[in-house]
């Protein structure tokens, strides 16, 4: 049953299985295991980024396609929900219509970019995605009458998904609409992740891997490489847009910085590389580690800085403002020691 759910793609490492289980249990029970708003917000972000990073892994890890437009698709999904909720009023119909419209817009845009640029060399595709993503980000900030510009949009979601909806207590935890909202994000991310896992383990996924390794050989066997690459781009864009929709439902706010910025694109790249490209499970490890570091590294460094206050230089180095430097060092170390990502490394250990 579980193997079937995972499409036969088992973690293939005892340590990896254990880590994945811990992450799954923590995310599944987050409202009951952790107290407060911040841990729940972090858990929701991890769920959403697992989906977003997995959708990028389909493109980069399985298809060998470097794209810089992934946050654009993420943003399209988020703005779809925001605009639908703004214009249609709060309601599940607005969330559904916004999500579908965002995903559809992402697929159409991905199709256009793919058909125009996937025939050319990989570097040109990457540059075209970068140009289109930058253009969309500029358009979103310029058309402030529609998108809210740099300020973004704040909107209402169905009351049943907000903290105002009090539903009593369960296992000593107060259950509110926010808890329901979290489980909407959790289960939607989980289902879409399993769907992506199914796609990469299907004959379609095998052809993508073959194309990544040697596109001419795949073509010479009889596969239309451009068609497969375009299809992968569209599927990946749709999944990213749905992740964006979930983010918008969770935050009740969208803005260029939270959904369209190039910094998020770099974060996605780092998460894929740290977790392990072409593994899908790498997205889970990469997103969980990265977002935990992003959220708690500053706190950890603050405590460490205070604890070493009497020592020379060290408190300065551990100053919370330097957290990006330490994240950078962590990234360099992880690439140096785990060139095939954490998942790749764990699987190698098992193989050896």
């Amino acid at each position, binding site marked *: 049953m579980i193997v079937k759910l995972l499409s036969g793609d088992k973690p293939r490492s005892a340590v990896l299985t254990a880590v994945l289980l811990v992450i799954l249990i923590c995310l599944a029970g987050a409202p009951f295991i952790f107290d407060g708003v911040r841990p729940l917000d972090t858990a929701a972000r991890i769920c959403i980024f697992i989906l977003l990073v997995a959708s990028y892994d389909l493109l980069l890890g399985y298809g060998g396609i470097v794209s810089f437009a992934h946050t654009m698709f993420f943003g399209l999904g988020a703005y779809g929900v925001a605009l639908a909720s703004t214009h249609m009023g709060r309601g599940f119909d607005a969330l559904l219509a916004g999500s579908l419209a965002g995903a559809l817009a992402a697929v159409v845009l991905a199709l256009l970019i793919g058909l125009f640029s996937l025939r050319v060399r990989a570097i040109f595709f990457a540059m075209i995605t970068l140009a289109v993503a930058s253009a969309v980000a500029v358009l979103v900030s310029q058309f402030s009458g529609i998108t809210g510009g740099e300020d973004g949009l704040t909107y209402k979601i169905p009351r049943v998904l907000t903290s105002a909806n009090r539903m009593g207590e369960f296992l000593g935890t107060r259950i509110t609409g926010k808890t329901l909202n979290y489980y909407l994000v959790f289960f939607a991310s989980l289902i879409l992740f399993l769907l992506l896992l199914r796609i990469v383990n299907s*004959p379609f996924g*095998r*052809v993508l*891997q*073959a194309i990544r*390794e*040697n596109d*001419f*050989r*795949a*073509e*010479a*066997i*009889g*596969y*239309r*490489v451009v068609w497969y690459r375009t299809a992968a781009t569209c599927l990946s864009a749709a999944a990213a847009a749905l992740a964006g929709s979930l983010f918008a439902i969770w935050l009740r706010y969208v803005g260029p910085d939270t959904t369209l910025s190039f910094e998020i694109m770099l974060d996605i790249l780092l998460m894929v590389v740290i977790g392990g490209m*072409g593994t899908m499970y790498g997205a889970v490890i990469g997103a969980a580690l990265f977002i935990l570091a992003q959220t708690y590294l500053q706190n950890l460094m603050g405590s460490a800085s205070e604890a070493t206050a009497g020592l020379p230089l060290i408190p300065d180095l551990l100053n919370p403002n330097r957290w990006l430097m330490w994240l950078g060092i962590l990234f360099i170390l992880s690439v140096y020691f785990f060139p095939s990502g954490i998942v790749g490394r764990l699987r190698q250990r098992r193989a050896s």
Partner: protein
Amino acid sequence: MSDPILSLQAVHTDIAQYHILQGVDLEVPRGQVTMLLGRNGVGKTTTLKTIMGQWTAKSGKILYDGQDITRLPVSARARGGIGFVPEDMGIFSDLTVEENMLLGCTSGPLDSARKEWLLGAFPALGTFWNSEAGNLSGGQKQMLSIARAMAEDRQLYLIDEPTKGLAPAIVSTMAQALRELKGQGASILLVEQNFSVARALGDSAAVMDDGRVIWTGPMAELAENKDLQERLMGLSMEAH
């Protein structure tokens, strides 16, 4: 020669600024093994790659099964029934042997009788069926490359030096498999430097020099005539 499966008419191919094929005329009869011979660097591999579409012919015509395929995309040529085994094998090393074989079937699942035949011809593939292809030895990779091309029934096989650098035991396995493929009525255009394999398999031969076909005739005639071999290829094939 009536109704060949493949016919090249005055095919010219450039690679970057180099004019490699300089008017190749070649016919591959149906159901026969045609050996493409010649010294290194005369354009044998470029001929196969031009037929497959990796290099586009600058001029001339390539007719396959009566149809002009000169401008067709590579994948359309493959789906039309041409199987290509390149010299560098081109296996997908991150995928398992099974996955490589399944990729060879573009129109459906791997036929069980065909699988049985291929695993009988190349037993090593059965042993490493679930292993990553990148972990196979050179000979096993070559077997996989050929078996993958044979995974589906193709009308024409273009095979580039399948026995190059292989141990004698593997060469005989390979030759036997090609013999069986020939026995099934497949048409094969084979570049092969191993003379005993070429003599055993070839029905006809085409010898190339300087980007052109300079001689065509029965393989047996070339195999028996050392003077002809010296004249055409600058060496006696018996020495190889």
